[in-house]
């Protein structure tokens, strides 16, 4: 399979050890990845890249903007709004989960309660449905 055919995941996670683990596991599972640690960085990638198939998003990020600000921007754009977003965060406050789901993200996971392969399996499943 050539690189061009690989699905691209934009990983937005500020904790480097976690970011590295996610990147590694996604790549082993056959994805191509780009990583960002701030909302603005992530938005720049979206603007400059031809395609992003999936977004893996944490809530608290570097800088003052959170994952919620990012999702709001993405869902307001006619081009990006169809990209499935998976929120993987340790901030399990109900009001935030509700806000994310209302904004239209695919799923919300509490980081410490899930294995990477569990989440990736759901990501793959949802991409298959999209096709």
């Amino acid at each position, binding site marked *: 399979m050539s690189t061009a055919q690989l699905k691209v995941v934009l990983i937005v996670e500020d904790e480097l050890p976690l970011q590295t683990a996610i990147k590694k596991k996604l790549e082993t599972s056959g994805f191509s990845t780009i990583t960002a640690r701030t909302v603005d960085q992530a938005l720049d990638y979206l603007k400059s890249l031809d395609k992003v198939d999936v977004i893996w998003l944490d809530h608290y990020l570097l800088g003052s903007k959170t994952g919620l600000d990012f999702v709001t921007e993405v869902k307001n754009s006619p081009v990006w709004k169809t990209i499935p977003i998976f929120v993987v965060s*340790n901030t399990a406050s109900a009001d935030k989960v509700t806000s994310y789901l209302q904004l239209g993200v695919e799923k919300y996971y509490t980081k410490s309660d899930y294995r990477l392969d569990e989440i990736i399996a759901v990501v793959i499943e949802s991409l298959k449905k999209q096709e």
Partner: protein
Amino acid sequence: MLGHEFEAVQNKKLVDFVNMLDVEEKPILRSKRPATLAIQTQKRQRGEYYYFRRNGSSFPVSVTVTPVIIDDELVGTIEVFRDITRERTNEQDLQKFQRAVAEASDHVVITDPEGKIIYMNSAAEKITGYSQQESLGKKAGSNALWGGLMGKDFYQEFWSTIKKVKKSFTGVIKNKRKDGQIYDAAVSVSPILDNRGNVQFFVGIERDVSKELAIDRAKTEFVSLASHQLRTPLSAINWYTEMLLAGDAGKLNKEQRSFLDEIYHSNQRMVSLVNSLLNVSRLELGTFMVEPEKTDICEIADSVIGELQPQIKKKNQVFTKKYEKKIQKILLDKKLIRMVIQNLLTNAVKYTKDTGKVTLAITQNKKDLLLSVSDTGMGIPKSQQSQIFKKLFRADNVREADTEGTGLGLYIVKAIVAGSGGTVRFESEENKGTTFFVTIPLTGMAKKEGTKTLA
């Protein structure tokens, strides 16, 4: 009374052989003594003084000196005095109590049987901001003063306890100072009864506990924050171990695999401990959400049983479920009720030996659903039964048998069930088994807006 012999004082003036002090125990001039005044004014004199006995000791007296006038001529005086030591002591005792109450640091209010204020001490004035003068005659703890912030049910229970049952009421309530500031008060109100058992008055003692509660809250918030911060490194350990075990970094030998299994397992334990601590802190902070929806409790129970199958099989236990046929769907928060069933069933399976029995029964009564979880396990020692719902408590026998476990499960169960208007109790005998009984009212759980769901 004075210790003088009649012969020794005969024909002497009283002023010459009885020394006295005034009522404040200060020396008194001869010209101001009652007898002198009686003679001078030719009028009867009354007062309280101290007289000295012959032996030099003094005692309080009530004195009346009456001038004796015959044919307009003063012929003498009659001095009657009475030892008032006992009255004085009683009075002093009373004063002591009065001052103790008046100057106590706790808010003290006394009301008539209708609850109308007849006394309040200075602490009550200071804490509430209302003076005694403006409060007298008003109903204690009413809207017009510092109260009225609690729900109708609270006041019903409150008045019924002190007025009908005639018992003391204690609790923590919200009060409002005169300037509008709200504070938490630990309250104790007691009826004072007469010989026939009728309420004479009520005594209310309150203490501002806002600070204590704030400290407690800060402590709980700290646990919540700390637990939250712990989740990030725990996720890193989880995920990297997962990848190593999956062979993502190359093939592992048998020993490496078994070591990593240990790391993974221990880390899972830590994750679940952190989750429990977070749940406890949310329950205590009251920041958790209750989202009731029509729920089939048997469905939830089945899913928990499904999850526990591996352990049940491994221990070769006999699991029986007895659901009554028509269990009505009631309003429940699925996550919360699941947590209750999960904790009880996990305990039952965990603390019952291989080939033992675990039974879950669900029945519907007139007013509530009854869940009972019984096992033939190790039981709870009698001496520790009263502590079993305490936070972090684990009975000695289970601690010995199994070092894992947090002592938070039953605490969480109790908090959830009590918060839903239900009850939880148990019967247990050591080495025979335990049965837990949980009731949930058919009216279900009440919706509660909060910021956190229990995870």
